[in-house]
């Protein structure tokens, strides 16, 4: 499967919000899409293109914008497809993919927790890796690692 195939199939299925389809090493293509079209696009990718397995969801903080990417796998075509969308830097949010791929549940929880991307209508958007009530999003660029030599440790008894 090459980018042209992906383009033809997406066009045939009437996929909305496609911005660009470009080649990418190791996957069939990288499809950039408009985040507002996510709800309509995900089922098309899953059913019409035949990518039922979602491998990972990740977020990148590009300071001026956020990027969220989805890696999906097709068994018959034996290839990956990379979907990516640019999100607003102020309030990054996108529709959840867990309605379409249930495996996105934890991946999106992690991306929300660590990168700070809000997934609308997510069934269970709470902390996964950090304790409840953790205020920061560590994988944002503005978050700096501390020097533990200066760390003041306070032990609290439970």
């Amino acid at each position: 499967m090459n980018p042209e195939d992906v383009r033809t199939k997406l066009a045939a299925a009437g996929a909305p919000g496609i911005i660009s389809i470009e080649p990418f090493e190791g996957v069939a293509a990288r499809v950039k899409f408009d985040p507002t079209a996510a709800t309509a696009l995900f089922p098309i990718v899953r059913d019409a293109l035949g990518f039922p397995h979602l491998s990972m969801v990740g977020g990148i903080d590009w300071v001026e914008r956020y990027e969220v990417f989805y890696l999906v796998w097709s068994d018959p075509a034996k290839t990956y497809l990379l979907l990516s969308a640019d999100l607003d830097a102020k309030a990054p949010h996108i529709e959840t993919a867990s309605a379409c791929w249930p495996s996105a549940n934890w991946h999106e929880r992690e991306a929300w927790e660590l990168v700070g991307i809000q997934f609308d209508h997510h069934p269970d958007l709470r902390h996964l890796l950090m304790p409840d009530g953790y205020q920061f999003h560590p994988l944002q660029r503005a978050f700096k690692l501390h020097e533990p030599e200066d760390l003041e440790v306070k032990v609290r008894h439970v």
Partner: protein
Amino acid sequence: MSEMWINMGPQHPMTHGLWNLRVRIDGERILDVDPEMGYLHRGIEKISEDRHYNEVITLMDRTCYVAGIAWEHLYVQAAEKALGIAPTERSDWIRMMSEEFQRLASHIMWYAAFVQDLGLMSPFLYGMRDRDLILDLFQSYTGGRLTYEYMRVGGVRNDVPEGFTHRAREVLDWLEPRFVEYDRLCMGSDIFRRRCDDLGVLKANDCVRLGVTGPMLRSAGSKRDLRKDRPYSRYSQVEFDVATADSADVTGRYLVRMEEMRQSVRILRQVLDWLDSHPGPVLADHLPRWLGAPYAPIGREAYLLKRNYPKGVGLSAIEEPHGEACAYVVNEGGEHPYRVKFRSPVFANLSAAHHYLVGYHVADIPPIMGSVDVCVGEVDR
């Protein structure tokens, strides 16, 4: 009888690591489960952003501590694509050999821990005994037992020593009859079969829907194995079969892993033959100095001023002992990766816990979770 939530973990002999399985039970029956992760979240993805490309490798060993070198392999492949570097041919074969040895070691470790969960003590001792022989092999060429720090962007650190292939074949000769013994201890025992049959069933279409991969998926009849479907490294040049089962239960996962060990031995024999007859360099020439250790990254700021760096994004996926692992490395022209993102197979396998635990009994949790082969280090990262 009223329902109640109980915590299995973070200190529980079932967990094999640091996580908490919250279970809602009615009597003995499981109504709902909620895995609580993050007790071992060490921020590896964040620390990687502060390290040179080669220095990230020290973190990879600790990401999944039972399959360290497989994760090194995953990372260096992605980093090489992001940086536009190709490994030498011999180093690629050595990497593949390392990954297969790691698969053997990981599966034997799984066998030892899983069967101990079922109450059998002796398989633990046999498993650890045989695993130590593989770790000795690792130690002879990487210098470490669990944390290898062996691969580099562009190759591997050093070639295998003299006489290594001979010793490796000795170990393989020793291991192969052991698999029969393992089987005799487990599959020959009615107690084992009664404990494991029809337990933790997760059918193939559910696996795909929930992102479950690896031996769990193959035990449901699917033949997806990235080594076959999307050959990386030199897997297209060796012969092996994909192990599958069709029962989709704990016994099926046991059988798949046992067969995978046999296939690993088969791959390893071919790789060792290749290594014997094809000497060559193991580290690529023309490596840029700014890759970092061990190439002395001093004078960092001054160095950055005068250079144009290539940019790129690398994506790699391997069939790790636990399943499909992916890495996504973004190179924005700095000395450090801009963003490193990993896909952990156990992360996805655990997220489906609700679907293969609910409906069974509390006493079934250890065998089922044992058959998932949880490695918390890679789940939490």
